[in-house]
């Protein structure tokens, strides 16, 4: 079951037919994203949020990008 986290993180991302996260640092460790399994969007008030289900090959994470604040967060991990 997914564990809710909601912490801000640093992400390296590329623009390739949309915004795509490539790697991120969380709690001092660097995670290389091997697959973006699914993406979806939602709204929080006036802010558009892009959600990414990503895996480093071992663990599944949910990352979110707030288009208004331009900040990344890790929302959950398996």
């Amino acid at each position, binding site marked *: *079951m*997914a564990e809710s986290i909601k912490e801000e993180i640093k992400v390296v991302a590329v623009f390739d037919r949309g915004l795509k996260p490539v790697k991120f640092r969380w709690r001092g460790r660097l995670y290389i994203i091997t*697959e973006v*399994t*699914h993406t*979806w*969007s*939602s*709204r*929080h*008030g*006036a*802010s558009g949020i892009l*959600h990414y*289900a990503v*895996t480093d090959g071992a663990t*599944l994470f949910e990352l979110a990008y707030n288009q208004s604040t331009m900040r990344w967060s890790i929302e959950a991990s*398996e």
Partner: protein
Amino acid sequence: MHVDMNAFFASVEQRCDPALRGKPIAVVGSAKRTVVTTASYEARKLGVKTGMNKFEAKKACPSLILVIGDNRKYIDASVRILEILKSFSPKVEAYSIDEAFLDITGCLKPFGSPEALARAVKERIREGVGLTCSIGIAPNKLLAKLASDMQKPDGLVIIDEAGKAKLLEDLPVGELWGIGPRLTEHLGRLGVKTCGQLGRFPASVLRERFGIIGERLRLMGQGVYSSEVVPIGQEEEAKSVGHSTTLPADTSEKAEIKRYLLKLSEMVGARAREHCLKGGKVCLTIRYPDFYTFSRQRTLPVHTNDTRAIYASALAILESMRLRTAVRLLGVSISALAKGSGQMALFEEDRRREKLLEAMDEVNRSFGEYTVTWGTLLDEGGGSEDDTGVISPAWRPVGVKRVNVK
């Protein structure tokens, strides 16, 4: 053409998490007393059904993986699928979050045949959203829906005029869209078991037994159905705005019930205000633990979308009745809707209340729901922040029926 997404919520979750693919999973809500909203095909094979509670589902399939649903994912996928469908036909009806009808009359030329068009739709959905669907193509919505149900998952069935009589002859009436278990039972008592029999049954007897729908039932038995595809945005105006919630535990506690009523009234009021609707009637729905459900309504002196007026009316209904037992579910809705802002409030106090609500709505629109809310709702109860709610079958991608659920 009818497009039915296969085990939609479960398929989205399996798409998100590769570890769930090929495994029996069931999507459930986050509330304590949740039920299975969708089971994967792997779980269905092992006896898991929609509507089972967690314990029943686990009993049927001990290896079942329960996944708490995330409605934002499903709404996003649904909207993306509808966008894809709109690129094939201008007439797309969003029938529910995971089903749509398309009128493909006049859209076949670039594809050559209905089958080629359907295959292109499937390919685009698979490519764009990563999901499979079953498609039914037929001369009308009734038969198209029947066709899409005939082959799952990832099916494609075409019923044409020439083949429909043979198909319907021995088809049980309960297989038809709109004929549920009770109607099937009633028809059975008349000796009508198959669509063939229904299509030949005297219309006068059906009319006498079932009233206005009698004639329509006979036509359905013949595969005749006149309802058109209603494009998105051209649906009938909503007749009511309502919300309901199953409580985490049955309760007779008045204070707790009142908190839920206030929260539901705020949800109803906020959605009505967003769409400039005001209600002339307030309806309170209560379900007891034995699932006995009833509603009582009250006519308001003036149309309103003011949370406090809705709450006061719902509360007055509650106070006027004696609850025979604890409450399992509460629902609040407004009906007799009127569009527009109506007459300007006469008294200063009323105008200030309107301005207060406008300001609250504005803050919540900018910073998210419940950024500013009623103090009473900040106490315990009245619905946890983490409750995700359930997407209603009446959900639509645009308009007042687009309910935001977490």
